[in-house]
């Protein structure tokens, strides 16, 4: 890219960002839109549910795009029945957090490694241009040790979609049907705490996403209730833990009987601990951790001056 072109691109980016943040009456009247992309029904709740609920509580309008159908995560249910139940339960959970709509793209869980990344990107790009979010939450594709690799594929596609959504040469037909380019100013990368280096920025420069911990005390209960609404997945987790313990001649007294009460208690222990892990060494008592790329990380400081 030559210097002039680079300067023009930067000027355009700054202009677009100013438009989004601009103080025109029309912009102020519009509701701030939060778009959340998730691979599966549970990941975004466990990693980011409290923060999202807080934004929606404050008046933002929330849309959830759930990429897979979660058809694998059950115990003794067919894939079809699992998909049906998790769809219903994920919609209930999203409602508890305050989402306005949930879109389920229906990809089979665990099969995203075989899906074209471009296809996945363009499916997500569609929703970015449709909803024109001010804030986007995506799975962090750079988080290591996240065994559910669907989250990696979705994170990678979503990050690419955010960039491509702002450039008119991607998906020209979308423009024909009224889906104009859109720059999403704020980006939150979320992940459950698997990566031991999650509190380090990917680089020391200020131009990349930075670690950020946010207080979720006020929405903790909503997050917990949303997580508990995922009954099929939670039952599967409880059964898988019990199965492992039994096969090694151990037991967990809590799971001697697996019923709604014991499974809900297990979820509660999990949600409490996750909030504690994220709050460690911060000023908060219950938190969530992100890598955050706000407007200040997208424009090099030399241009802002």
């Amino acid at each position, binding site marked *: 890219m030559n210097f002039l072109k680079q300067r023009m691109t930067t000027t355009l980016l700054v202009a677009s960002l100013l438009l989004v943040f601009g103080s025109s009456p029309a912009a102020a009247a519009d509701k701030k839109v939060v778009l959340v992309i998730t691979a599966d029904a549970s990941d975004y709740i466990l990693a980011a549910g409290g923060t999202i609920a807080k934004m929606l509580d404050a008046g933002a309008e929330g849309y959830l795009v759930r990429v897979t159908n979660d058809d*694998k*995560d059950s115990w003794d249910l067919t894939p079809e029945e699992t998909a049906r139940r998790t769809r219903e339960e994920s919609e209930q959970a999203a409602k508890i957090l305050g989402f306005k709509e949930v879109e389920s793209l229906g990809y089979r869980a665990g099969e995203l490694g075989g899906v074209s990344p471009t296809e996945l990107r363009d499916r997500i790009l569609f929703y970015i241009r449709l909803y024109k979010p001010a804030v986007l939450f995506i799975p962090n594709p750079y988080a290591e040790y996240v065994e559910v*690799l669907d989250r990696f594929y979705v994170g990678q596609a979503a990050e690419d979609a955010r960039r491509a959504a702002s450039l008119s040469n991607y998906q020209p037909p979308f423009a024909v049907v009224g889906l104009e380019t859109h720059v999403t100013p704020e980006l939150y990368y979320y992940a459950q705490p698997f990566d031991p*280096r999650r509190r380090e920025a990917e680089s020391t420069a200020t131009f990349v996403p930075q670690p950020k911990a946010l207080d979720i005390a006020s929405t903790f209960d909503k997050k917990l209730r949303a997580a508990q609404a995922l009954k099929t997945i939670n039952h599967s987790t409880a059964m898988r833990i019990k199965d492992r313990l039994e096969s090694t001649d151990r037991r967990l007294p809590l799971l001697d009987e697996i019923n709604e009460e014991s499974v809900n208690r297990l979820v509660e222990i999990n949600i409490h601990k996750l909030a504690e892990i994220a709050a460690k060494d911060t000023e908060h008592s219950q938190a969530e951790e992100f890598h955050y790329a706000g407007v200040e990380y997208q424009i090099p400081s030399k241009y802002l001056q």
Partner: protein
Amino acid sequence: MKVFELITVLALAAMPAAAELPIADIPPGHTKTFLVIHPHHDDHSWDYGQAGLITKLVDAGWTGYYIRVSNDEKDGPHGYPHDDMVNLFEAREATENLGITDVISLNWRNDYMDAMPINEIRAQLILLIRKFRPGLVTSYLPWGHYDRNPDHRKVATAVGEAVWLASFANVHPEHRKLGLRPYRVPNKFYSQRFDYGKGYEPNVIVELSESNVRRKARSYWVHRNVRLSGSTGRRMRALLKEQGLEIPELEGLSDIEAHARMQEWSMYDAARKVGRENGVEYGEMFSRLGEWHPWPGLKDYLESNAVDQ
């Protein structure tokens, strides 16, 4: 001594040594079966191979299977089919030396793996995981970066997907027809060229005895097709001679034997380096994912509240 040199020396002296990694015990294997899953015939024994861990598991009474995903047709001087056959033969000899029970070769085309659907390689691994129900799987790190070998990247990802999905009954439900039930692998020991690129976080070392290293060192050069060459042995000795040096241990050995001996020393050096950095004599480094890894919020609770039946 100039002032800034003094400051540098003082600063270095004040710097704490790099933290030593904790030593991982062999897990209390329930099934006492383990799988070593690698793209190539020789990935078990080199600087970043897991042969030390393999021999430790075997010594502790475990049964191991080596799954070779590729056909290794590119590795060696003989051309496609010949190299494939020789390398498989030597993989059997080298892993037998480590105490491995069998080599299962999946025969995917070596260095053509980018075009292969990950789901197809993964499907074979899930079947084998459900068949053997391993208490431990060792392979390359699925989150590894900077590995320039495309087979290493592809197989590591396939292993990552297979150990994740093998525990879900709705993944390959046809396996039930064979009586193969879903199974979650409780212990994963991943290795990687940890000094190759930035950002690696090995979290344990496995302490090795001289006997572990000896077997690893032999299994390294047993891959004669790719690891031993008389001309290299001859050249090394000539170089030493030019500099007026000689190594008494190499006296009386053929050029090939001398090369094998030097290869063994390189394996000892690699194990000694990891050991030295971690307060033991010999070691191997791993990223270990333990029994409750999928549930970081439940790990502490499960560890302190699970009781014997």
